[in-house]
């Protein structure tokens, strides 16, 4: 916050909010051409002046500015910049709460004046919901800032939905096998198992970024997603809103989505991609098409989608060219011929016959079946669809896995699960139930500051600058910050996943697949 000017005077740098827009708008791609994206963890502090934490620290007027709290706290709550007399307002979002009392770094006890007070932050209690509890939001923010697992003061593995992932627990062996070290644990995920002539694409982490369309989401956030995909040798997906030019530097890590609206689906966007994904349905609105409300259909979005500005865009459901598995095969053949090196993925929702659908995708030539469960999704959807239609992903994974095993084709196709994957623990549980890997969406948005107020679709869009196309609001984030937050998140997730595998005694994430014996359910006797 403080900068030594050349002439020796100390002046405060204007805070982020007051900074004049120093860069031209997103118009010039060259300016943002980054040859390399690093996986390196760097601090990516929150972009708001008052970040929200679980606890609040209040410094009373008795404070004598002795600085004891600064010396005591190991979490960066109390800071006194060089040359300053007074301690800054506490960065209380970093505080780990009363549990700190046992660690010898507890500022409350250390303050000789008794000027500090610790209380639960009332705002944190109003955030989130059953699936994304305040603790999950805050722990995701902590990971995105620091690149490390969040502290134990936050519940960072499960939410409070009362079922599915939130009631599943791992059963750890008493001690990991000797000789296993964390460095040797592989988290690679193979995407082409068909053994055909197409590339044997392998990514470094068992998850990749879900499709969010240009039009629904801020291009800067999307670029952050593309850049983290490049950094971790993974993927992100265009969603159905077309392929913005600025994705091209990351084209080896961007999946082109072919959705029913066919927005931006051209020969060159298909030829550019290493994976092409057909979106048959999406978990948040199974059985319904995409839905971009008119307010978000700005001139640039309309140009990309070749539509009229301001008109609400409903993608049809389903593909009007696909009414049978044979039609589906023709569909895949079409892409396979346009791009002979691409892997083919089909994203489907989770109806009761999802297992049959998965088999159909394999026989039609698909490399990846992507199951999107009903409780996830980032896009706008009727509440009645989000809550009620199709089954949660926790049920679908096991069904599909076992059906594919029975068909003898399990090792020929990659099963990806999405729709409610919030934490690395969810990823691991999904894999233990039979998926090969996962796709995440909401977790990435939360890392960028989403608070799940669910008002993404209305008016100018997201008030946090994430899911918006509003000229003013989209300036609330920048590409570099988005990238770093996501790099940190991915790094923390990977570390937590490796740690989990280590505790389970497994040397790779692929060894976890289908290991239902390593799971237990809190609502069951667990004696199958």
């Amino acid at each position, binding site marked *: 916050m403080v900068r030594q000017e050349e002439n020796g005077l100390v002046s405060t740098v204007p805070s982020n*909010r007051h900074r004049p827009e120093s860069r031209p708008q997103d118009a010039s791609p060259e300016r943002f051409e980054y040859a390399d994206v690093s996986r390196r963890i760097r601090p990516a502090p929150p972009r*708001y*002046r*008052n970040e*929200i934490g679980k606890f609040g620290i209040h410094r009373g007027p008795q404070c004598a500015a002795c600085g004891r709290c600064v010396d005591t706290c190991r979490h960066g709550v109390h800071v006194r910049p060089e040359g300053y007399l007074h301690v800054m307002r506490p960065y209380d979002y970093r505080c780990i709460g009363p549990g700190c009392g046992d660690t010898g770094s507890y500022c409350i006890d250390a303050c000789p004046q008794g000027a500090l007070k610790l209380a639960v932050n009332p*705002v944190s209690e*109003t955030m989130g*919901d*059953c699936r*994304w509890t305040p603790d999950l939001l805050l722990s995701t923010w902590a990971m995105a800032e620091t690149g490390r697992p969040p502290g134990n003061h936050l519940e960072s593995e499960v939410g409070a939905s*009362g*079922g599915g992932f939130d009631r599943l627990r791992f059963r750890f062996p008493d001690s990991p096998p000797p000789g296993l070290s964390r460095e040797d644990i592989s988290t690679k995920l193979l995407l082409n198992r068909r053994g055909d002539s197409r590339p044997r694409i392998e990514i470094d982490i068992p998850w990749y970024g879900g499709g969010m369309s240009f039009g629904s989401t801020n291009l800067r956030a999307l670029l952050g997603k593309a850049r983290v995909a490049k950094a971790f040798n993974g993927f992100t997906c265009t969603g159905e809103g077309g392929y913005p030019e600025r994705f091209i530097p990351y084209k080896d890590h961007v999946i082109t989505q072919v959705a029913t609206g066919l927005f931006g689906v051209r020969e060159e966007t298909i030829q550019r991609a290493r994976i092409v994904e057909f979106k048959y*349905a999406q978990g*948040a609105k*199974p*059985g319904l098409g995409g*839905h971009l409300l008119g307010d978000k259909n700005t001139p640039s979005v309309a140009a990309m989608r070749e539509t009229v500005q301001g008109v609400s865009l409903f993608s*049809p*459901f*389903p593909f*009007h060219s696909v009414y049978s598995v044979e039609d*589906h095969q023709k569909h895949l053949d079409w892409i396979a011929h346009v791009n002979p090196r691409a892997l083919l993925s089909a994203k*489907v929702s989770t109806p*009761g016959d999802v297992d049959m659908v998965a088999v159909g995708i394999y026989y039609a030539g698909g490399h990846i079946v992507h199951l999107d469960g009903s*409780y*996830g*999704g*980032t896009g*706008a*959807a*009727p*509440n*009645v*669809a*989000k*809550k*009620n*239609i199709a*089954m*949660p992903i*926790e*049920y679908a994974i096991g*069904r599909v896995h076992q059906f594919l095993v029975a068909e003898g084709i399990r090792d020929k196709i990659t099963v990806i699960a999405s729709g409610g994957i919030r934490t690395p623990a969810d990823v691991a549980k999904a894999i233990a139930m039979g998926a090969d890997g996962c796709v995440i969406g*909401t977790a990435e948005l939360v890392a960028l500051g989403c*608070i799940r*107020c*669910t008002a*993404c*679709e209305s008016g100018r869009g997201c*008030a946090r600058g994430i899911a918006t196309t509003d000229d003013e609001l989209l300036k609330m984030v920048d590409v570099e910050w988005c990238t770093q937050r996501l790099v940190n998140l991915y790094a923390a997730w990977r570390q937590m996943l490796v740690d989990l595998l280590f505790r389970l005694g497994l040397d790779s994430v692929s060894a976890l697949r289908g290991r*239902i014996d390593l*799971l*237990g*359910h809190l*609502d*069951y*006797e*667990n*004696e*199958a």
Partner: protein
Amino acid sequence: MPAKYVIHHKTAKPRFRPIGKLGIVEWREDCSGCHNCVKRDCVYRLYRDEADTLRNEVGYLDYIYQCKGCLNCIQNCTKNILTRVVNPEFRRLGDGYYTPDLILSTWYQAETGKIPVSGAGYGGPFSGPGFDSMWTDMSEIVRPTRDGIHGREYISTSVDIGRKLPHLEFENGRLMDDPPPLAETPLPVIFDRIPPHWRRGAVTSAVAMAAAEIGTLAILDEASLRESGGSLRSHAIPFITAPHAATANPAEAATLVMIPDGPDVMAVQTALKREHSAGIVAIRIPAAPGVTGRAADLARGGADVIQLAFDSHGRERGAAQPRHLRDVLRDTHTTLVREGIRDEVTLIASGGIAAAEHVAKAIICGADMVAIDVPLILALECRLCGECERGQPCPIALEEIDAGFGARRIVNLMAAWHSQLLEMLGAMGIREVRRLRGETGRCMFFEDLERDTFGRWFGKRKTDS
């Protein structure tokens, strides 16, 4: 091709300031007066509008109602003196079944007539009791219409009310039977009797007017019909409690009347039919334990229409361990199917139908259609505070409501429900609601999914506590 059934909606702003969920609390002390919160940080401009509204006094003050809780003002406050709270009044709304969120959603639909839409996935519990343990299924590929539910083709939501023949008999090519009369509603929703404590002012008229506007039916008491001088009769189902005095009363000329269940109910039905040759008689049975047997008896005995009236939370009445409508309806439906008489009788379910999804789910469980009461009152801005039942004045002055305005709000709610029903039918790949009846193949039940998935892996589910 017949014209599409459309319910036209038109915004009907609430008369009273609605109760919002979130509020921003500010401690005035220590405020630096920078006004960032007011001028800059509310992307919805609510604070600015607040000032305007205070100056100009137009309509209700909607800023608390409309706070979307984006936290921008809180997180950017220069002195960090703002905090967000959940409105305690919001928390007190309704009860465990008619939750505050459900009430707010109903208000929204009654105001706008639109489907509630939001982003960011579903944030509710994994499953729950009753309807919350059902997921309607969808079809990955097959859809009823080639151009989607917004297209040209038709998804029908009409249902028939009345006795149907098991088969037709002909002699020498001539139809021997006289098919019994049928009433048709364009929506599988009719309006139930409004409980007495809500029958104030123009409430009944509003309900009847709304029924007439959208072409459905409202069950009205004789007293209400008499008071109205017969003007509400066109879309009313008179509820007749004293059938012997029924001759010169509103039952006259009504195609469809309703009577309460009783020991001689079939005799009453016969008597009413004799006096009104075209009549359809519906029998209302309180859904107490054993209601399935009673409904089957009545159906065998020739009842036209049976209404199973559950309590307002969709539970059996008078049972120590009441079952939910979901299970009772499935029992009743399958019993009638097994006896081969399901198609002859119309089943109406009522009580606990609180949202559009419940309509589809009750029909999947075996009802032909549903009757609703509480949502109608919620549409009129009721807060379910219960003051009226205690004889206290109504905080929203229900007795002063204008019939036209009330009807507007109810029509809007039904427009939103109709659209949601279309969305669900569309996702299920079903193009008419009659085909949804008892169609449990288009639905997945929590206990089945748990048993088939986790049960296989983890053994027995611990007894639900």
